[in-house]
């Protein structure tokens, strides 16, 4: 029972570390250049397991999931990614979060591809949610 647990933990650790981040990006105006630029930034970071990004009218919302073993430094990783993204997209209002809830919500947006008005509302809601303190 204990051994089985240890084994499954080790397996998960190995599998969790090996593959590179799953990235999904949605651009309202479908600007391939910008999408690629963001993808490169996120792909380069070895500590991410999952990332999502949404471009909308000079707004850029990015969510990150950090690999389990790097979670101790989640805040730092988030801040460094935030800086990189801000440097790459100086014209955009950049919002980065490492919260699971934000990731889920962004993934939902990417899947549903809502119309502009709804998207604007959704993003505003997300940002206020992320700002809430414990």
């Amino acid at each position, binding site marked *: 029972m204990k051994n089985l647990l240890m084994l499954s933990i080790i397996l998960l650790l190995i599998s969790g570390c090996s593959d590179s981040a799953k990235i999904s990006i949605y651009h309202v105006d479908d600007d391939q250049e910008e999408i690629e630029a963001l993808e490169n930034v996120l792909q380069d970071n070895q500590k991410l397991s999952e990332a999502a990004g949404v471009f909308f009218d000079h707004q850029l919302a990015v969510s990150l999931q950090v690999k389990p073993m790097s979670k101790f430094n989640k805040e730092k990783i988030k801040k460094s990614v935030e800086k990189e993204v801000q440097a790459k997209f100086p014209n955009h209002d950049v919002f980065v979060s490492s*919260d*699971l*809830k*934000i990731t*889920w919500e962004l993934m939902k947006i990417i899947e549903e591809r809502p119309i502009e008005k709804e998207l604007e509302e959704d993003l505003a*809601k997300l940002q206020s*949610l*992320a700002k*809430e*303190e*414990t």
Partner: protein
Amino acid sequence: MDANTYQQTVDQLAPKRPVLRNCFTAFLTGGIICAIGQLISFVYMYFFPFTERTASNPTVATMIFIAMILTGTGYYKKIGQFGGAGSAVPVTGFGNAVISAAIEHKSEGFILGVGANMFKLAGAVIVYGVFSAFIVTLIKTILVNIGGISW
């Protein structure tokens, strides 16, 4: 009889606490409670507008609710005898301390019994949590004001 030599006799003969076994059951019990907490926080995040950070509040409240049911039905003390610290250290243990005292002192009425005795066991946790938070923050505030570290 000499107290010292007697204490040696007692140490030799009294049954030892099964520390290893207790640690294992504490690990199992505490682990399961925390895993349930994690699942509940996922539920709050998935179905309600809570982030990882804010979901911990309703999760704690839900865990204490579960502790109330288990305490009232008499299961929590069974879990406690099995799990030891595994059931005492999680917030459910805090809830159990508060709720068991409340139930116990119901016979003295709701003001002098329940109200006055509710924190008989758990009060120490709040008192020293608050006091140490005060000291820690005070030291940090002073250090920040002197300079050298930042928040």
